């Protein structure tokens, strides 16, 4: 059996130009054997969801350091749902106060990663979560 590769979209919604973290995470996930698509900067939630559809991704990871996460993160989730991608593993990171992280996790984000997170922890989280999901899908079939 060919090992299925996890496909990840790393997205930068909004006007925020801070891409150091997003690009590092993207390259680390690639080092962990995932197929990674990076959206580039200044994307609207709808543009990100469109790319997610075209690229048929399993995971969407968003990064915002501009404080606009409570507006833009839920809009990405909604745009994904509207395009039938409500099931993707949705994660995010950036300058996000803990209260906001908890609220986003209640609103359908699987996990939020704050400053100081080890990039390997992000990769391992995604790998574990996707293996769990795929094992469950396999069992369901």
């Amino acid at each position, binding site marked *: 059996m060919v090992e299925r590769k996890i496909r990840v979209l790393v997205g930068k919604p*909004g*006007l*925020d130009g801070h891409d150091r973290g997003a690009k*590092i995470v993207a390259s680390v996930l690639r080092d962990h054997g995932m197929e990674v698509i990076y959206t580039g900067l200044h994307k609207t939630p709808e543009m990100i969801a469109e790319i997610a559809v075209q690229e048929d991704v399993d995971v969407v990871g968003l990064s915002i350091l*501009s404080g606009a996460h409570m507006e*833009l993160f839920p809009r990405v989730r909604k745009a994904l749902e509207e395009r039938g991608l409500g099931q993707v593993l949705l994660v995010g990171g950036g300058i996000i106060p803990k209260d906001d992280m908890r609220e986003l996790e209640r609103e359908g984000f699987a996990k939020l990663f704050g400053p100081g997170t*080890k990039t390997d922890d992000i990769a391992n989280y995604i790998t574990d979560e996707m293996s769990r999901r795929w094992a469950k899908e396999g069992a369901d079939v």
Partner: protein
Amino acid sequence: MSTSTDGASIVTAVNPREMWATAMAAGKVRDVEFTTLSGEPVQPLYGPEDASVDYERDLGWPGQFPYTRGVHPTMYRGRLWTMRQFAGFGTARETNERFKFLLDHGQTGLSTAFDFPTLMGRDSDDPMCRGEVGQVGVAISSLRDMEMLMDGIPMDRVSTSMTINGPAPILLAFYIACAENQGVDPKVTRGTLQNDILKEYQAQHAWLVPPEPALRMITDVMSYCAEHVPKFNTISISGYHIREAGSTAAQELAFTLANGMEYVRRGIAAGMDVDEFAPRLSFFFDSHVDFFEEIAKFRAARRIWARKMRDEFGAKDPRSWMLRFHTQTAGVSLTAQQPENNIVRTAFEALAAVLGGTQSLHTNSMDETLSLPTEKAAKIALRTQQIIAEEIEVTNVVDPLAGSYFVEAETNRLEAQAEQYFLEVEQRGGVVPAIDAGYFQREIHNSAARYQRAVEAGRKRIVGVNSYVEDEGDGPEIEVHRIDPETEREALAGLRDLKRTRDGAAVERELAAVRETCHDGSNLLERFISAAHAYCTVGEIAQVLRDEFGEYREPKIL
């Protein structure tokens, strides 16, 4: 060993330095990586032979070529650095209050942070901007907002720094128009416009149009201001964002100066005499946590710039040779974990900037990895500078670390590395072609990734992150400054009101004139000032520029 005539035994055959080296090699050393923060190997000790310096040629005296020791003869005995805390959030009205608070607490200059919509040349009511209005800085859509921002602040006496790049000439136009409306002659206004578009493509990414038209607007600003706003620094050539995006100290130094030289070439190519505009160029560097590497970087920057300006560009006015700079402590060095420790990091970084001879300084607040600073955190950050200035006696002596074998060796090393990078850039056809090829972007990303690996492997330590870690659980964190959702509504209401009450025909006329000026080669800043007086918005003017010059697309590097 030999025996001297008086019979005492003395050492002659063994060189003392070699003796030390032997003892060092035999000694036990801690199992850590002895490199600078940028990953450069450092020796355990530096001696006279490691720091080859010709005093007059390489150091000189303060206020004299090549300014390694500082740009003023008196340095901080004459005048302390300007304590310039970057501030801005919410609406113009809210930031105006914060400005007055900072001035009341002894701050000596203003520094404006704009929100992302303004930085990207968009109005608060643009659909792209929902959720971003007033978040990371103040929302300024028109002259009316600028008037509110500067309300009650004497524009003839306070110097104002404006951190904006893509639409910088438009915001400068608002500022000039605002001064005129306050009855202040723009000739006396002082301040600094960041206006450094090259590093936007390289690192910070708040651009408006492609490099060539952007550079033309910059030369328009330089030539207009040389005549009409002579006390304004027209560009603050910035390494800060390059470093924060992940570069090493040497890359920050080299890329910044390479950009500076590009602006000089453009100014000369536009027909100006180098001494007409070069004295108004200023610089902006990061001060990171590697104390000595940073001090050496500031000293090297002054020396390189002086040499380039005099010897390569033929500048004759000593003010064109002097590299004057603002410093900000390293935002990326702050940790979300145990945030109070950030006060200590910032204090060390600020001290390095002062020992490196900075002209102005921003100290970060401890809570900036979580949100914009609270008033309390912002005050501690300002007090940190005041303690350095007034308590610890470091301002008595000019360039006190000159002659340190280590600091001089590091200064030499950084200058040599910068020269290597200048060659790399030249081989790629210059700064703009190197941007188009993604050269700087890739270099910065690779350095960021290397550093991240070093931290994760524990080779570089960060207290609270990979050393002395505490389980912080979901417990309470320090107080967070939140932007009132009312802000966006207030900004939108203001803009609606403006659009209803201004003279629509005048707006149309002015925007048409901007469009024409894009192509007829006359001065765009002059045109923007006229448009500002008609209350054209930043988004409207920027849209004309995007229509006429096109939008910038970043090269893919990943």
